[in-house]
């Protein structure tokens, strides 16, 4: 029996990526459903990224075309089950658990929308989770342009969880107003 378990453990450690999987998707990220709390809404746009790193290339590339909305989730995420249908409704998109991107019309403005599953994505999309927040999922980032000491730079707002609201219609309005504010900043600074 010991040999079976020892062999199974060795196989999982050597022959699979389960160690990295557990380390990255369970241990290293705060489990918001385990702590039964979400970070409070910020309501503010900022220039500095959360971990001080530069904005990823896919953001810089798309920001030249219009504002951006990023929605992050993980495979196992209670808050995402609540928020994903609302995000789909607000932006008129249809995504499942996998990554999804599209240029969409939001109230007359073309924006770049990207849904990112942190457990399934890779490269700069995975890195962007820590660049903008990394404190848990669901996580939403609206990116636009702002003026910083005379320079026009990427300007973003970060929100988490169910947005501190209990009703779906209020959450939808919150997401819409977040995006409208991003569009206003973009129009002023493009």
């Amino acid at each position: 029996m010991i040999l079976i378990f020892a062999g199974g453990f060795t196989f999982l450690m050597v022959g699979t990526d389960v160690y990295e999987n557990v380390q990255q998707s369970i241990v290293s990220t705060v489990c918001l459903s385990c702590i039964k709390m979400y970070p409070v809404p910020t309501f503010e746009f900022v220039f500095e990224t959360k971990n001080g790193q530069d904005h990823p290339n896919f953001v810089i590339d798309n920001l030249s075309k219009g504002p951006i909305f990023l929605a992050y989730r993980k495979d196992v995420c209670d808050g995402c089950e609540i928020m994903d249908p609302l995000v789909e409704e607000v932006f008129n998109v249809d995504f499942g658990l996998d990554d999804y991107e599209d240029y969409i019309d939001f109230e007359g403005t073309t924006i770049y929308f990207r849904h990112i599953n942190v457990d399934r994505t890779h490269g700069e999309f995975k890195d962007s989770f820590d660049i903008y927040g990394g404190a848990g999922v669901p996580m939403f980032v609206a990116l636009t342009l702002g003026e910083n000491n005379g320079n026009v730079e990427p300007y973003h707002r970060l929100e988490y969880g169910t947005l501190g609201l209990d009703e779906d219609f209020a959450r939808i309005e919150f997401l819409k107003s977040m995006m409208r504010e991003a569009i206003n900043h973009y129009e002023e600074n493009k």
Partner: protein
Amino acid sequence: MNLKIKRYISQFFFLIFANLGFKINTFFNGKTGFCYPFFYCHSCPTATSACPIRAIENGVYKTGLDPSKINWKLILFPIVIIGFIGTITGRAVCGWACPIGLLQRVTGKFAIKLRKFDIIRRFENHKIEGYLRYAKYIVFIGLIIISTPFFAFMFTNICPVGFLVGTIPISILNPGAYYPSEFFNLALIIFILFIILIFLIERGWCKYFCPVGAMLAPFNKISIYHINVEKDRCVHCNLCSKVCPMGIDVPNMNRDPECILCGKCIPACPKNIITFKKTIGGDGK
């Protein structure tokens, strides 16, 4: 050094080991990809490893138990870790390593004093107490194996240990930075009941509700290390059963799944017929 001191040293060692998960610099990042073999929450800011229950939940979440959708790696990983340790030491992990076991060792001193009250004694001797011990298996199967894949409702959503070592420290370290989720109120009620339970009943969480204890318990039947009683020499004074934190009928037990191998019964025996025994490939007799 007596057994009591050895067990305190072991429990404090594992408490420290379980909490080396902070990141000092690029050279030291204590966040590993292992699962704890005991009950502890990875949402604790200093946690080193993953909660085995959460890993299993991640493996079956919203799969409807469809084998093609289940993430077998995430299920098997905690099972082989717990299985390996379980086949060697049985449920000794609960008595010698689990930080929540250490907490209950402290609150248990209060619970022992409460035994002078008739209502506590009557509960501990009532037949319903025996049935209640199966609750941990129901918690494990109901909330982790059934509810998580079919209803996306997980044990860790309402876990009182997550509340104790995750919610409370994170709230203290980040005042005003978080707001309650949809499960907070229910989890708070369960946490309060958990605290009441461990102060009222010695090892109440281990006995009745711990899902990791439910995973480890069957291994007592085949583990290498176990508690052995020389029954033919036993005078049935029951002093061993009186000190047993798990409330086991020690003289009549045969590799009881509830035994946490704490060894409290060993010095209590006036005939010195209770011992730790190492058995490989036998039934321990």
